């Protein structure tokens, strides 16, 4: 059972993302704010940092491909972005102390990067016409806040699961 806990959690988060996006956009004071749930990538960043970088990239590739095929109908966008973000996450964490708060902070920064890249891609193929300033106010900042709350709530749990698995692996080998 414990062997499958890591992919299983990733798949659960993959399925939870679109359920949460049903609540978006939210309307505050006549302005529509778009919240993009980025649970999977948060999980993958934690996986890359605390467990195994190669595992994270592989899982990112598979889930990115499923995401592209199921939701976007353009294969290749998240298939590329998910592993890239995992790789960058693992690369950056080597430069700083691996404390839970720094990892959480890093996840938020990487979510911003992912959002920016997906914005550039969307404007490149003309899926959207909103300007950069509007994108930052209406989409990037709300998304950042919402995902920061998610990271604050579940970051501890992810760390616990992954370090637990890492420990079991070491004991087994």
């Amino acid at each position: 059972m414990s062997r499958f806990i890591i992919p299983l959690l990733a798949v659960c988060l993959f399925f939870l993302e679109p359920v949460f996006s049903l609540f978006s956009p939210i309307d505050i004071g006549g302005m529509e704010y778009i919240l993009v749930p980025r649970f999977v990538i948060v999980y993958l960043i934690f996986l890359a940092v605390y467990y195994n970088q190669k595992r994270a990239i592989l899982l990112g590739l598979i889930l990115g491909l499923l995401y592209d095929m199921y939701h976007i109908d353009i294969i290749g966008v998240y298939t590329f972005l998910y592993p890239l973000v995992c790789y960058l996450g693992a690369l950056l964490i080597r430069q700083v102390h691996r404390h839970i708060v720094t990892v959480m902070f890093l996840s938020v920064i990487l979510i911003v990067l992912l959002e920016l890249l997906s914005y550039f891609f969307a404007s490149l193929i003309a899926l959207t016409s909103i300007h950069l300033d509007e994108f930052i106010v209406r989409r990037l900042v709300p998304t950042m806040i919402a995902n920061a709350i998610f990271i604050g709530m579940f970051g501890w749990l992810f760390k616990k699961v992954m370090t637990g698995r890492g420990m079991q692996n070491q004991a087994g080998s």
Partner: protein
Amino acid sequence: MPRFFSNKRLILLLVGVIVLVALISFSLKDRRNASIPEQIVKDVVGFGQSLFSKPAHYITGTIEKIDGILNTYEENKQLKARLQEYASNQVELADVKAENKRLRELIGKTEDLRAFDPIQATVISRNPDQWEEKVIVDRGSTSGVELDMAVITAKGLVGKVVNVTKTNSTIELLSTENRNFRVAAVIPGETSVFGLIEGYDPDRRELIMKRIDSSFDVKVGMKVESSGLGGIFPKGLYIGEVTEVSTDDYGLTKLAYIRPAADFSMLDHVVIAKRKMEVYKNGTDTESPTEDQGEDES
């Protein structure tokens, strides 16, 4: 400072980028028809998705019910006030319907653009990166869903089907920025005013109805519905209300802003309208790539 990429990794990355660019351009070409592997993935993922979405809908439904109970007294007062009006409307409607049927029989016309078979569907997911306004529902070609069918809620038209697999279909909402999304619309009145709903203004959150003949008199507050002349949509699906009328860029035709009646943000149950009359696949409701090319050239 460590090296970012070793040689082996650099080559791997470059090959990966090339493959992905090829994949992107390949899948961008024909997004409306999923290939067989894509269909299989969509069906399998859709099944898993519905396992998660249905309990979520149940929970939000329960919360809404509790909310409803709390407002019962206020609502009851309002409803009682409207009941009187409702009864007289009901009688009038029955009378008009009977007369309509009799007149139809008189002229020997049995087919009706308005008639449609409703296919009930539950929304299982919304596109999480919300660049496109798309939702996925749990009914597909086995339930009779086809491309470009109209999708409605109790309040009015919400969108149309853009992708169908065996058990799921993807719906593009009216609030899309896609310029190829057109709906043949009509403002019913003594003289019907025809036009096309083309585009959405995200700042005003209103639909734009274009190509209205300038001789027609369009007033603020008029109701807009689908005309059924686009080929696939049935007639008479309520779209919204006119809020502003102006002329288009060239001053030749009129342009009207329409506040949509349906709410696009919290969708749970929708109805896919399969019209009973013969379907014409080359009308404005169809969004074929060849048609777009023709427009660009002209």
